[in-house]
């Protein structure tokens, strides 16, 4: 009996300590410090992504835009910048683009392409042109030559006006008629006794005399009207002659100055055409230059160096540079990264200024966007930021589809603002766009936006991890050395590099792989460098790396510690010693931002006779996610297919995560739930010193789960807080052994025999470990060995079925005669 008890209490030996943490051996790295190591700045393990980026950067066909997907900290931005810049360096600098005034329709400014480096020269030349003419034209109109010509015209027309009036006045006087000026115009009246006739005198005249006077006055009135009506025609002729004079004078000086500019840009036909339009406009608007001179202030600088081109009336001759390249410096295609990809930052915008309380604009207020700056090269955008900006994604797609940049104001598009605006010429666009985002966004775009796949034909998918081979280990060490060099950190000892690589393995959640989230490793290195500096060390040592990792964990572990404290104080009930029927310690992982930790949860099962239903209380109260519910349903399938198949399933079971208030998802507790159920059915107690993780399938095989390291460490911390007894440990799926990269203290406890990690493959293995009783295999007779767990479970299920059968019989049986009385 004593021997049987001893056998029953025997807990399976755990995995060897070496299997719990496959550490990197500094001696195998082959260097003492990273100072002696040839540093590598290349991206490792991302060949697939690099090929995609290179293809997108080099292919010239349209729509081969690129979506770079992967997790943060993988070096996506850095890799894209490096590869794209390399390709851009082989391309010539693209053309300059400017907007100039459309003299026929100012609200539709003309876009003009110029050879790289020409835009600034043209702008400067136009400013000089305006400044020169603002001095030349007023001087011309102040000249004696102009004044003489103008006076001659005025004299001519003045005389042409005066002569008929003078003749008329003489005629009227000769006819004895006075010309009177009234507020409304001229009036004619016969003269009697040297004075205009009075009404009473007129009335007293003989009718014939009145008629004679009336006829005379009427005739003269008609003549005067004719003379005065001729006035406007003369004035029109006069204005025309003056305009001709102005144009003739202005033409000479304007043509001379414009030719000077045209000669500088003789090789650019478009500039020549534009300058001809400018010339004509300047000649017909020469008064602009006169007004400017009249408005001269009394500033401290001489008038001749006044910057007339800054005055608003000369905006019409300005050159608004959208994009310009300094050919002495910009010898490559542009690579532009827009950190705030709003609609206006992408396509540019049309600004307005307030004039007398209203909003006004002109082509000089057109501002370029990232598309303009990147035109002819590459534009790198963050996908999440782009998609979160209203209308930015739409605008980018529209630009890529039409291969042109059209500037549309958000206010105009939404109809929010009703003010004068512009319709600038679209600027042709040749651009490769690189979006950097996560996989979820990529998937959503593929599913929800049919245009996405058309416009972004390439994807660069960054690997999350790298196989842990000897070659890759050395390569990782060189990359680490490269980072140390790049970030200007202290050299690292081989042990420090090994510790960092162990952390890379840990972050990969797989002892056979290194994480490629190199950003996280950089953070550890920088922090370790800081600690090394504080200690006055010239090298980053293993201790510094360990301190950086520990401190990072500690900073993020407030919630973890509070939960641990709650378990220690029995606020959260977790048993770590003894045995209990229908109760098992499950394990879950909680994430708080970047920090993940494991914690035990008590799972209990209760059974009774029923109709074959396993109730998942978490699901009933909507605290369980779909994966958890799936796991529980699998349990039902396992029980139904394994036990008492010849009788109806007459079990009513309930399962619950005790003291779980925040919801449960994932199926990693399904094996634990099954153990609790088997314990409840068999009546055999489960060792509370053991915790369980692993999902189960309907065949009773235990399957791999995630976060195995955090789960083991979570239960270890709980046990350690209460005292390690040597009978404590965690059951993990055998498939997860390769993922083990446990903390050193867990490994040390395992070495000391105080804690164990037991790998199991099946539910039978697990229940044996948990109860100390054999699970029992079905014999040829069809029965399980007597006393085994499976036999007890089957017996209990048969009992439930029988009880149910009897119950049904009693209910449906006809009542006995004595019962009817």
């Amino acid at each position, binding site marked *: 009996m004593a021997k049987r008890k001893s056998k029953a209490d025997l807990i399976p030996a755990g995995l060897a300590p070496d299997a719990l943490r496959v550490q990197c051996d500094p001696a195998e790295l082959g260097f003492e410090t990273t100072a002696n190591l040839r540093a590598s700045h290349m991206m490792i393990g991302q060949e697939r992504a690099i090929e995609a980026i290179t293809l997108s950067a080099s292919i010239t066909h349209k729509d081969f835009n690129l979506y770079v997907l992967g997790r943060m900290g993988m070096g996506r931005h850095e890799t894209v910048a490096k590869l794209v810049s390399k390709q851009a360096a082989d391309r010539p600098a693209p053309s300059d683009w400017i907007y100039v005034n459309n003299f026929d329709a100012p609200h539709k400014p003309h876009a003009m392409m110029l050879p790289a480096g020409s835009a600034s020269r043209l702008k400067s030349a136009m400013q000089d042109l305006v400044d020169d003419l603002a001095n030349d034209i007023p001087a011309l109109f102040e000249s004696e030559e102009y004044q003489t010509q103008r006076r001659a015209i005025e004299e001519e027309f003045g005389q042409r006006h005066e002569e008929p009036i003078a003749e008329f006045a003489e005629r009227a006087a000769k006819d004895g008629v006075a010309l009177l000026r009234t507020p409304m115009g001229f*009036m004619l009246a016969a003269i009697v006794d040297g004075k205009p006739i009075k009404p009473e005198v007129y009335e007293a005249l003989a009718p014939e005399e009145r008629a004679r006077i009336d006829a005379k006055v009427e005739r003269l009135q008609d003549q005067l009207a004719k003379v005065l009506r001729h006035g406007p025609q003369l004035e029109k002729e006069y204005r025309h002659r003056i305009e001709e004079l102005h144009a003739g004078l202005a033409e000479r000086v304007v043509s001379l100055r414009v030719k000077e500019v045209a000669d500088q840009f003789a090789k650019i036909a478009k500039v020549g055409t534009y300058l001809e339009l400018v010339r004509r406009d300047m000649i017909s608007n020469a008064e602009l230059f006169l007004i400017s001179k009249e408005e001269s202030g009394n500033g401290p600088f001489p008038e001749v160096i006044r910057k007339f081109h800054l005055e608003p009336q000369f905006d019409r001759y300005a050159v608004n540079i959208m994009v310009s390249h300094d050919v002495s410096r910009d010898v490559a295609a542009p690579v532009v990264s827009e950190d705030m990809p709003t609609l206006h930052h992408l396509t540019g915008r049309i600004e307005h200024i307030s004039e007398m309380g209203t909003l006004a604009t002109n082509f000089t207020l057109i501002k370029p966007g990232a598309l303009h700056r990147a035109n002819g090269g590459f534009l790198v955008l963050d996908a999440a930021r782009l998609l979160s900006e209203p209308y930015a994604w739409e605008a980018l797609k529209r630009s890529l589809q039409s291969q042109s940049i059209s500037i549309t104001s958000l206010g105009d598009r939404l109809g929010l603002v009703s003010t004068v605006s512009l319709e600038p010429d679209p600027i042709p666009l040749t651009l490769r766009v690189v979006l950097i985002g996560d996989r979820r966004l990529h998937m959503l775009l593929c599913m929800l936006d049919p245009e996405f796949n058309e416009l972004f034909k390439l994807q660069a998918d960054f690997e999350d991890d790298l196989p842990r081979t000897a070659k890759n280990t050395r390569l990782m060490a060189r990359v680490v050395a490269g980072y140390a060099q790049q970030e200007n950190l202290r050299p690292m000892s081989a042990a420090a590099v090994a510790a960092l690589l162990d952390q890379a393995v840990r972050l990969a959640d797989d002892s056979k792989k290194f994480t490629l989230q190199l950003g996280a490793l950089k953070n550890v290195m920088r922090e370790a460098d800081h600690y090394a500096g504080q200690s006055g060390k010239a090298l980053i040592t293993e201790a510094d790396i360990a301190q950086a990792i520990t401190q990072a964990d500690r900073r993020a572990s407030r919630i973890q510690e509070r939960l641990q404290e709650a378990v220690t104080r029995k606020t959260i009930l977790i048993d770590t010693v003894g045995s209990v029927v229908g109760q098992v310690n499950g394990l879950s992982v909680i994430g708080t931002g970047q920090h993940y930790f494991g914690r035990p949860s008590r799972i209990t099962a209760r059974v009774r006779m029923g109709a074959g239903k396993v109730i998942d209380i978490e699901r009933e109260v909507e605290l369980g996610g779909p994966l958890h519910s799936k796991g529980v349903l699998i349990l039902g399938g396992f029980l139904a297919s394994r036990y008492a198949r010849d009788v109806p399933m007459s079990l009513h079971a309930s399962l619950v995560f005790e003291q779980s208030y925040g919801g449960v998802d994932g199926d990693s507790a399904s094996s634990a739930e099954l153990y609790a159920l088997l314990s409840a059915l068999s009546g055999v107690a489960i060792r509370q010193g053991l915790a369980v993780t692993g999902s189960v399938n309907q065949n009773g095989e235990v399957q791999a789960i995630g976060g195995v390291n955090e789960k083991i460490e979570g239960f270890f911390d709980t046990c350690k807080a209460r005292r390690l007894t040597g009978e404590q440990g965690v059951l993990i799926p055998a498939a997860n052994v390769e993922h083990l990269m446990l903390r050193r203290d867990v490994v040390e406890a395992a070495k000391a025999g105080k804690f164990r990690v037991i790998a199991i493959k099946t539910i039978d293995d697990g229940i044996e470990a948990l109860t100390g009783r054999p699970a029992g295999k079905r014999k040829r007779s069809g029965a399980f060995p007597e006393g085994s767990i499976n036999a007890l479970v089957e017996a209990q299920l048969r009992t439930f079925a029988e009880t149910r059968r009897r119950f049904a019989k009693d209910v449906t049986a006809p009542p006995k005669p004595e019962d009817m009385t």
Partner: protein
Amino acid sequence: MTAPPRAETRILIGAGSFADATAALKILGLMSAGPTVAFGGLLIEDRDILDICQIPNQRVVSASGALVFAPSPAQLRTVIEADAKAFQRSLAKVAGLAGAAWSFEHSIGDLVQQSLTASAGWDIVVVGHRSVHPMRGKIISLRAAPVADDALEAFSERLATSLSGEHLVFAVGDRPENRPGSHVFATLDAALAALARTNAQAVLLDLSQGPVRRLDQLRQVLEVARCPLFVFGAATLGNQVEHSTQIPPGRERP
């Protein structure tokens, strides 16, 4: 007329309507950069106009050559009142730009006679006449030969500069004139005949120096010149005419 405020040059503008005053005001506005001035405005309502408007079928020829019926007395009264207000406003504006004091009054009678009657204390009396076309004309000083280099000549030159007009001197007398731009006429009638066919912007004369010395001559000059007359020495003739209006002194306006 109210005693003018003290200033270097005091100018009184007499006009029968706002249209007649406008040309003179425009000229004075262009001269505002000159020495400190004081301006007076006198709108003179001519009774003859009111009478003639009552003749049956009387017509008015507008500045654009349109023929319309003469206004009724009530309409004419309304127009004159509106003209008075406009004249006053424009005068205030011109004075404001020049930083000058100004006064305005309204009287009834003959334009030339009333202007001269009110001339006491004013250095220059401007008799208004509307402009019938926009072409810049000449500045003509109508003088008795020999022409003296006096205030009138200085003012004429200033006017010519401000208005960018050519300055001509029409000298009446039998002595030749050597100054540039001068034309000598044997008689005033000859000078007026020439003036009638000259595009003048302003005509300046001095009643104390001649050749115009009488009221009817001054009326004749106004008729042929068809532009504002700048009359110097008006008090000489003004003293000889009957004071038909006595305008009470008013307070100085800003």
